[in-house]
């Protein structure tokens, strides 16, 4: 009886076995239909060699990761292609959940690709994740209220200018990954870094030198304790910042470019989109160029996939410039291939040059197998943002990160 019931299920599972192999692509749902577009295009181009199927993951990166790691840790062989957030590479590679690209394929995936994204997909000198889309945060400002910031514009100047006008500045301070997006950019912009030797993988050592770390933490703390911080700073995520900025009482906002199209339909400030200016992520130290944050999606092949060769081919197809262009135009996700920026219209991406150089110079968050724990350690130490002392927090952060790197820290 049981066997009879199971038969149709088994038949359904084995469907791809004889004919065209089905490649399951696990990736979070994206607006603009660029995942579906890439799948349709590549299935057409594959000419029957494989058929990609969209396996939808939740919207938030943290939730995507939770589902993926549970499946990967259980050796799920149905995972052929993984849509990877840029911060997962080392963790997934070290746990042997994904396989590196063969050297023969590497050049095609990295030639002409911006530095930041390539660095984010590389672990111990092997390319584990092929750059697909990217993202970074820019400094957005109200052209009608303040002058364009000079190239060496600092966080302190930003706070002072806004405070002088009695206006707010929107950044993300929620106890979430976005906190580490901001902190890591501040740290690298102060000349510091999380790890001394990320290439050592799980044997890396914590850097976090007291000088730059304290400086980065002080920049955050000064901001949070200043009158320009939003009352909801400690729960603000990207979309909270966008909504708050559109209300009109802010002059600056640090956020991803998705806020630009959204500004066109803002109602509280007439013609907000036309009043928007953009610049690179502000500096911490006037003499050190800033290193903006890096986001985006890379593509990897699951190590228990039964169709690895086809999956590698499919990734080459998915990340091709035409699909990147579609993702940028319809989904607002900046490309990783430099040349694609030239095809973007200045109408839709008037800020494309600063976007491209920001992504090229961006500081990927530490490439460490324990990255998730490092990020949680930071959240444990510095949230809420208006309640820590920079020098003491730098010491506490270092200590907790040392435990976290060995995955021995108890983190909430």
């Amino acid at each position, binding site marked *: 009886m049981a066997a009879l019931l199971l038969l149709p299920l088994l038949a359904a599972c084995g469907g791809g076995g004889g004919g065209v192999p089905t490649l399951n692509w696990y990736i979070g749902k994206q607006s603009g239909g660029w995942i579906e577009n890439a799948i349709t295009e590549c299935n057409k181009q594959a000419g029957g060699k494989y058929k990609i199927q969209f396996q939808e993951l939740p919207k938030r990166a943290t939730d995507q990761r939770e589902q993926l790691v549970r499946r990967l*840790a259980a050796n799920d062989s149905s995972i052929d292609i993984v849509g990877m957030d840029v911060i997962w590479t080392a963790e997934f590679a070290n746990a042997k959940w994904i396989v590196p690209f063969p050297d023969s394929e590497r050049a095609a995936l990295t030639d002409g690709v911006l530095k930041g994204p390539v660095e984010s997909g590389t672990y111990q000198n092997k390319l584990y994740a092929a750059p697909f889309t990217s993202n970074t945060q820019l400094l957005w400002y109200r052209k009608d209220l303040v002058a364009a910031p000079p190239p060496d514009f600092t966080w302190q100047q930003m706070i002072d200018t806004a405070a002088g006008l009695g206006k707010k500045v929107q950044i993300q301070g929620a106890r979430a990954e976005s906190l580490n997006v901001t902190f890591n950019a501040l740290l690298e912009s102060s000349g510091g870094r999380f790890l001394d030797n990320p290439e050592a993988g799980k044997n890396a050592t914590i850097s976090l030198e007291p000088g730059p770390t304290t400086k980065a933490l002080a920049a955050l703390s000064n901001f949070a304790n200043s009158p320009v911080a939003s009352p909801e700073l400690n*729960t603000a995520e990207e979309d909270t910042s966008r909504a708050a900025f559109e209300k009109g009482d802010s002059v600056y906002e640090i956020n991803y470019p998705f806020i630009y199209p959204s500004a066109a339909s803002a109602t509280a400030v007439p013609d907000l989109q036309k009043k928007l200016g953009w610049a690179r992520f502000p500096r911490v130290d006037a003499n050190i160029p800033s290193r903006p944050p890096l986001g985006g999606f890379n593509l990897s092949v699951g190590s228990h996939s039964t169709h690895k060769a086809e999956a590698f081919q499919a990734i080459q197809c998915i990340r091709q410039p035409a699909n990147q262009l579609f993702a940028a135009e319809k989904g607002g996700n900046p490309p990783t291939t430099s040349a694609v920026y030239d095809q973007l219209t200045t109408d839709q991406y008037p800020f494309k040059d600063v976007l491209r150089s920001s992504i090229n110079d961006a500081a990927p968050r530490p490439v460490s*197998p324990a990255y998730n724990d490092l990020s*949680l350690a930071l959240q444990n130490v510095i949230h809420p943002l208006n309640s820590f002392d920079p020098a003491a927090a730098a010491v506490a952060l270092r200590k907790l990160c040392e435990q976290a790197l060995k995955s021995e820290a108890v983190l909430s």
Partner: protein
Amino acid sequence: MTNVTDAPQIARPTAKQNKLTDRDKAERRLGIRLVLPAAIVMALVTIYPICYAIWLSLQRYNLRFPDDRKYVWFGNYTKILSSGVFWQVFTNTIAITVISVVIEFVLGLALALVMHRAIFGRNIVRTSILIPYGIITVVAAFAFRFAVSPDEGGFLFKHASTPPLSSHYGSLAVIILTEVWKTTPFMSLLLLAGLATVPNELVEAAKVDGASAWQRLLKVILPTMKSAVMVALLFRTLDAIRIFDTVYIQTKGANNTATLSQLGYNQLINQLNLGLGSAVSVLLFLLVVLIAFIFVKGFRTDLGAVRGER
């Protein structure tokens, strides 16, 4: 709804403990045979996972570092008990539990007294009081979160300099409020069952003797329904100490509001640290056992009384 409650309490047969008749013995055997299948299933679905968790908690075992797996005996427990995060989380959990259970008890008792006395619309009153308990916790948690966060369209605290979910005490207050709103009906239902066991003659007699309403409540009604009170408090305390969903939805543990369940969840699901996470779960389990033990032995709570078994 109306006849949930009558448990004949008066004139209980006494002094037949030691002499069991054949019939008693046969009934007892039948009873054991009847519960045995259920007991075996319970053992399989609870004892096995508990033992497995204890076994995992003695190892360094992280699914992201499978090669580093080894026995560390009580290493995970020392790490947890010596970490600041654990004690913060422990304090939060206890604070949420104690404050919410106390408020629920007071409100629940008031509601139970109202329901007990209601003359018209008894069914409507009782049913409507139960509505919050029928609403899914996640939904209730979202409703309160949206109500108090102006940036998410909330209508409360629109002009506050710090909205409640941006501060530690504010967040705790919202979490406790949600818990109280959601589970007071459960408390009042259990207390209502207890109220029905208080003989009316007893209350009338106290009235005749000149006891005030307050005295009747404290000296007559509450002591008579003590077992119902203790069971209600025990159930709610055990529930509250395991609080997870409300906090997960409203703050995700931000502003230092994480609870023990959430700490375990984070170690297990987010960090895939089976050793450390299982150790947190085992500690939570021990805490639950300890609380149950204190209630049952320390306060002599009779779990059978409310169900009308004796």
